[in-house]
């Protein structure tokens, strides 16, 4: 532009941009907008700690106040990522301690946080206000104590049961817990110094109930919920005894249908069921076109509709068709390639997809990768998906944050080929059986984790992780 607003004005306008997407877009307009945007950028979200290096972040953004970083892939929550895989926060803290003396908040998810890191945090940032650790590991109360000792006011939100971490007395802390009700009595007695407690659980009497986590519930309970909690937005139902042979709890899919009928604002569901029918799922799909998150887990892998013994394709298809806003979906039960065709056709806003024990062949994976335009995170376990679909859709992988595949049919050769084709991807083979070269090329790998990155190769890999190198088609490990 020959003339434009003065920088100060633009900066002021940019302050109103909270969405990262908007900021990214603005920074692409022209060089001066890029520069202005980066000077006034205060909060950053790194969805994969290996997608970018601390140095690159610091080079671009020099004035950050909040940093949010995620480490291990989601399946790490279920022990599918071997211990020691990575996700260390320490190098980030070291770099940020020099670059961001005014940093106020750090939010970490699925990262390894040592006491050393916590100590460095406590010493480096004089205006530090909030530390959020979700599903993190590697620290003890010693590390937290150093934060408490050196920081004036800290809000720590720790999303794991308190018994994994002995809490001492932190008088100036407000602690937020995401716990299950059974732990509460013990927790109250231990955390005597905490000044305030915010629990994301509630009783069923509360008509303002927005989010509900239920451990033991039956259909009657869900029906009661459906009649009284009209504002319910999020629901999680866990099975009381997922491994029991007798289902003596009368929790059937009918309860979920009742909820879908009675709670119009419901948009997020996570449920565990022993069995389900197509009819119920179709009813739920019709009642609730507003689902954003739908995660259903049927305990028995590959379980069909228990009345008709048919696959669950049609009902998940109905969910796809009716819930046009769906962003996050978990799939399991008896499912053929047909369900993936439905997903590829209808799930245009789907960003996260989790698949387990489903599908017939590569075609299933192909439908997903070629059809889901908004897909960002794909995690797959125990499915008969192989090289063909992956290589045919290699370009798609560069538009996503990550792809995880374990116990599928991806060969070592395909991993190497993919690395040669796609320079911007890191292809990690995670295998307990030793170097992939010691086996034939067509041998499937145990796990492969593929993600977009602008950083250099990882230097912190354990001995069971290999990165495919694009240049000399061998697998590399840096010690």
């Amino acid at each position: 532009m020959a003339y434009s607003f003065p920088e100060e004005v633009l900066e002021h306008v940019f302050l109103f941009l909270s969405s990262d997407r908007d900021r990214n877009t603005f920074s692409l307009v022209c060089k001066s907008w890029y520069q202005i945007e980066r000077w006034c950028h205060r909060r950053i979200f790194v969805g994969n700690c290996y997608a970018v290096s601390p140095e690159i972040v610091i080079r671009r953004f020099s004035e950050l106040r909040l940093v949010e970083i995620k480490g291990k892939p989601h399946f790490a929550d279920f022990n599918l990522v071997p211990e020691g895989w990575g996700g260390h926060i320490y190098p980030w803290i070291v770099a940020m301690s020099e670059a961001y003396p005014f940093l106020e908040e750090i939010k970490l998810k699925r990262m390894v946080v040592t006491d050393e890191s916590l100590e460095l945090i406590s010493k480096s940032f004089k205006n530090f206000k909030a530390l959020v650790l979700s599903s993190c590991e590697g620290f003890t109360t010693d590390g937290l104590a150093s934060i408490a000792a050196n920081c004036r006011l800290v809000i720590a939100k720790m999303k794991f049961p308190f018994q994994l971490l002995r809490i001492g007395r932190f008088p100036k802390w407000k602690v937020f817990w995401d716990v299950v009700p059974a732990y509460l009595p013990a927790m109250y007695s231990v955390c005597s110094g905490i000044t305030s407690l915010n629990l994301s659980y509630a009783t069923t009497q509360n008509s303002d109930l927005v989010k509900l986590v239920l451990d033991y519930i039956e259909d009657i309970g869900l029906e009661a919920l459906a009649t009284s909690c009209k504002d319910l937005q999020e629901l999680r139902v866990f099975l009381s005894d997922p491994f029991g042979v007798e289902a003596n709890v009368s929790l059937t899919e009918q309860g979920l249908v009742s909820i879908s009928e009675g709670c119009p604002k419901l948009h997020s569901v996570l449920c565990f069921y022993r069995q389900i029918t197509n009819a119920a799922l179709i009813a739920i799909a019709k009642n609730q076109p507003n689902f954003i998150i739908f995660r259903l887990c049927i305990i028995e892998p590959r379980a069909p509709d228990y009345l008709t013994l048919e696959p669950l394709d049609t009902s998940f298809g109905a969910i796809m068709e009716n819930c046009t806003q769906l962003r996050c979906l978990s799939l399991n039960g008896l499912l053929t390639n047909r369900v993936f065709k439905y997903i590829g056709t209808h799930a245009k806003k789907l960003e996260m997809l989790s698949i387990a024990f489903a599908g017939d062949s590569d075609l299933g994976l192909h439908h997903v990768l070629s059809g889901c335009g908004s897909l960002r995170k794909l995690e797959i376990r125990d499915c008969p998906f192989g090289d063909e679909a992956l290589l045919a859709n290699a370009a798609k992988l560069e538009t996503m944050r990550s792809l995880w595949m374990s116990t599928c049919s991806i060969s070592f050769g395909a991993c190497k080929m993919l690395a040669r084709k796609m320079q911007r991807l890191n292809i990690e083979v995670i295998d307990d059986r030793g170097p992939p070269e010691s086996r034939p090329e067509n041998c499937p790998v145990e796990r492969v984790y593929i993600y977009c990155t602008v950083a250099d190769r990882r230097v912190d890999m354990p001995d069971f992780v290999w990165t495919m190198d694009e240049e000399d088609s061998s697998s590399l490990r840096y010690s």
Partner: protein
Amino acid sequence: MSIVKRNDPPELEYSGPLKTELTLALPGGGAQSPKPRGKRGFSDLNLENNSEDEASVVTQSSPPEGEVVGWPPMRSYRKKKMMKCNKFVKVGVDGAPYLRKVDLEMYSDYPELLAAFEEMFTCLSLTICDTLNEKKMMASANGTQFVPTYEDKEGDWMLVGDVPWKMFVESCKRLRLMKLPEAMGLAPKTTS
């Protein structure tokens, strides 16, 4: 119960420096049974209809339901809770008017258990105290010392802390915090 046609799997055999297993890939299932570190792997083999594939070979016998790694997809604390691993045992303290019960499965080591005692017997204001020879001891507000002991499966009263935690949980039937008056001289000397 599956009625879906699946592709024929390739037979896979591989050798390497580490111990390997001969497996047959299952129709539609995963290609091999991986062995995640420290955990029992589980191939799809035993999820299929038993009548379907006589030739399927597993190197280990079918694990009972519930041993698929990472399945169902819930965090381990929740899975543990749901598997109803309760071990409630009585806890008595000499001089306390009533006994309490603790669920030993709720704790993962001795210090956690002692911390729980502290909170449970507030009437005695018990606190953990360190001793010269590092036995776990507790003391009340007026200085009386208590030694945690437990009755094992054989009916013997044992000092808490000698065996690994899990072994202790397995063998403990009840707990008792025994008062040790200084006169008896049995308690190790404490640092004041």
